[in-house]
């Protein structure tokens, strides 16, 4: 589900600039599966799919698979369109040292949203 985060680094070059000093490793959990994402200088360097025996990471985002599916829709429904919206509905949990996440909040939001099939860009 999140394996493809490794695929689109070129398309995300502008996004990587927003996090050019960020080096971290975080876990995304769908309850039934886990993905360990390694970031160097704002670029996704590696994504490993679980199961893991002794995974080491800085912070973890956990939501049921069906909630991640809703988040990853082209045009997500209200309440599923943002990770803080999911936090508000108590379907997503943030755990661990949240400093890398909160100091690069927009970067992580856009990184995850980059997996949506088509970007929502409407210009008036």
């Amino acid at each position: 589900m999140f394996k493809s985060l490794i695929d689109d680094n070129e398309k995300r070059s502008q996004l990587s600039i927003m996090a050019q000093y960020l080096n971290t490793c975080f876990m995304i959990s769908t309850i039934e599966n886990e993905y360990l994402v390694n970031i160097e200088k704002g670029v996704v360097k590696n994504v490993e799919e679980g199961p893991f025996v002794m995974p080491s990471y800085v912070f973890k985002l956990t939501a049921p698979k069906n909630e991640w599916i809703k988040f990853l829709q082209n045009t997500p429904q209200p309440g599923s369109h943002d990770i803080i919206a999911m936090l508000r509905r108590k379907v997503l949990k943030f755990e661990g040292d949240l400093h890398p996440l909160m100091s690069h909040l927009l970067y992580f939001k856009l990184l995850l949203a980059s997996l949506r099939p088509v970007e929502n860009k409407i210009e008036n």
Partner: protein
Amino acid sequence: MKIEKEPISGQYGKFKIDGIDYRIYWEEAGQGIPLVCLHTAGSDGRQYRALLNDKKILERFRVIVFDMPWHGKSSPPENAQIQNYKLSTDFYISQIMSFIDGLELIKPVVMGCSIGGRIILHLAINFPEKFRALIGLQSAGHLDPYYDISWLHRQDVHGGEVCGGIAYGLMAPTSPESHKFETMWHYMQSGPGIFKGDLFFYKFDGNIGNEIKKIDNSKCPIYLLTGEYDYSATPEETKSLADTIGIEMIKMKNVGHFPMSENPKEFLKYLHPVLNKIN
């Protein structure tokens, strides 16, 4: 080069609020019924740029938007220090009333969004006779904290970046990216701790419980409009508020927490019929 000039004029003035002088900036356009607009927490009056340019509204309304003290181009009070800024209900009411008195506005309409959508409820409870109508955007009677707001003001996190990141998510995925970016940019320019300090009002001091029942819509008409993508003040919370007051709420499709700024075209479709009811 020919430039496209907007009909907006900006001014500064000194206002006494709770006995202290504040240098306040405001913008206005149009003529007729005064319509005072209140921006959201941690932002400024630029959020109402579309209203200030809307010919249809400007024919009947004098749209006036001020930056709250410590926000936008309004200054902190003289001799201010970087401090633990916290917006209280009383101070928020005082600045609105001082502004209205200072400009000698008679029975204005006041429209506020988010914290502004909350304070109009306090105005409805305390001074209904002073207003022609009150319009709440993204209004809810109370809000329990759902994330740790200490992240909004700490020296090891860039305040502009985190506040912008929070604001971005409150907007609808269907809103135009250019307007979303501008709305986020205002948050990125806010002073350290100001967004967090405003949220003290929004999540603690300004919460209203049973006092909502004191609102009498016959003394001053109230209109409530909420964007469907707002997860801070949700349409369900506005509906509950509207039910208590005994009025209908308007749920706006395809917009989130900042309707007038993130998607003005969509928002104005909902606002025009409301303003048409106000004479």
